[in-house]
């Protein structure tokens, strides 16, 4: 029923930016395009920073961010923000790794490259392989600010370009450690409790887990036409159901 709005429409919607959003965007696009083949929705990643700039430049219609756009950004590009889900950022390790909990200090020391061996935090005598996200990432921004308290991230860290890729990398490397959107966590990676708090949906929802954030879609100025319909769709019951299915927390 929520899809009825798209009947008889025609045109293209271009989406780019935050990679945490991609699963939801894809599902929504599939449903809309499946109903109406005349609509074409293209979805690119790039990271939150990319999303803001591209929508600001008018290269795409919707720019997604995994963090709140800064005031500068909002002003410079006259952005309209739509927060349609709540999410957390969790430290993850390979399931083969015994470690399931780290304190804030330990996490900060590991990511700063001060702790380089798993045995220093109670694991095997193996070197720690760090994985971090690129500069454009909203996930990185949030993790850096809220989990690392703006501490250093070592230059030795491997740099990964998306949430999905981070999960892939850590699931491949038995001694790797990284961080992903909570919505992306599945059995291929093991979430690590932060200061003793499990990064579960419930904990994020209840505000117990500190490294939380919203998922935003942004447009340049007021959205109109097809783009408006798409954003409206995200807030319908059906849209929010997709959000929950993909592992995020509904805003309603």
């Amino acid at each position, binding site marked *: 029923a929520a899809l009825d709005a798209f009947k008889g429409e025609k045109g293209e919607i271009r989406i780019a930016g935050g990679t945490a959003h991609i*699963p939801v965007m894809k599902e929504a696009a599939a449903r809309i395009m499946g109903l109406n*083949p005349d609509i074409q929705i293209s979805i690119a990643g790039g990271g939150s920073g990319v999303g803001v700039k591209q929508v600001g430049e008018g290269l795409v219609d919707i720019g997604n961010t995994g963090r709140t756009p800064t005031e500068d950004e909002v002003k410079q590009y006259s952005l309209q923000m739509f927060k349609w889900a709540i999410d957390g950022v969790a430290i993850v390790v390979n399931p083969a790794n015994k470690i399931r909990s780290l304190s804030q200090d330990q996490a900060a020391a590991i990511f700063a490259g001060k702790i380089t061996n798993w045995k220093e935090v109670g694991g095997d005598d193996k070197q720690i392989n760090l994985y971090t996200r690129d500069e454009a990432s909203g996930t990185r921004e949030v993790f850096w600010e809220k989990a690392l308290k703006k501490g250093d991230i070592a230059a030795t860290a491997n740099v990964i370009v998306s949430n999905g890729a981070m999960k892939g990398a850590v699931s491949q490397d038995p001694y790797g450690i990284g961080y992903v959107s909570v919505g992306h966590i599945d059995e291929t990676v093991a979430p690590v409790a932060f200061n003793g708090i499990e990064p579960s949906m419930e904990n994020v929802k209840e505000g117990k887990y500190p490294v939380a954030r919203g998922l935003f879609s942004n447009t340049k100025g007021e959205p109109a036409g097809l783009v408006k319909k798409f954003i409206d769709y995200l807030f319908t019951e059906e849209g929010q159901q997709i959000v929950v299915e993909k592992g995020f927390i509904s805003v309603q």
Partner: protein
Amino acid sequence: MGEVRRLQEAGVLVFSWLCGVLLLGAVIAVIGYLFVHGWRSISLSLIFGATPPLDALLMKRHVFNGLFPAVVGTLSLIVLSVCWAIPIGMASGIYLAEYAGAGTKAFLNLFFDILAGLPSIVVGLFGFSAAIFLNRLFPGSIHPCLLISSIALAFLVLPYIIRTTQMALEGLPLSARLTALSLGASKLQNITHVLLPQSLSGIVSGVILAIGRCAEDTAVIMLTGVVASAGVPRSLFSHYEALPFYIYYISSQYTDREELATGYGAAIILLCICMVLFLTAFVIKRQVSYHALYRA
């Protein structure tokens, strides 16, 4: 002394076989690995997802969870870029080899050598910057898209085509050049009747390299309009998917085994597309030169 020479020759022999075996082993490992892991995912639904193939081909319905849009995207990219690159490339190659004066030639040679060395990502960067520039000039109408990607790709392969054409022509011996002239051929006739046919295999090999390059390139399109999901491109000005980018995307962002399997499938399909392209080009090459040289 003879002993030393024999040893040297034996050394060369052993070395070359070693290289051959090493390379062969590596290729078999790469391709074997792909096929061992990917052959099971090869099926019609890999390409068309859940959509009936006929509907997809007639563009009545979008294909999800299938490679169809990526395959179409890649093929259109190849065709478009080669369309831009071949006429310009061959003409420039012929000009350089046969018409350009010494000064112009030295300059252009250097220029194209440098262009040939230009990394694809830099070409992509320029394509991207051009798109932004155009977008500012004509707000809302131009953004990274199929057209821009194909032009950027054409730039990427142009030097290959130019240089192979030129090299093939310049490599011909003086006697081959003089003969037709002595029979009253004009310069142009000499080129079209004698020099080009004789250097055709060289030129075709350049074109083959170019096609292969277009089919596989990821760096340029990454910056100029390819996206993770877009459906079949409806016009030159839309975003599109492409196989190589799809593989890149899946390799890092797969969410489950099934998605990874489509990655293997895509890799096998891309590999096959490239092989088929190559085969056709080689068949064409043999026949073309045969016709050109041995039939009256």
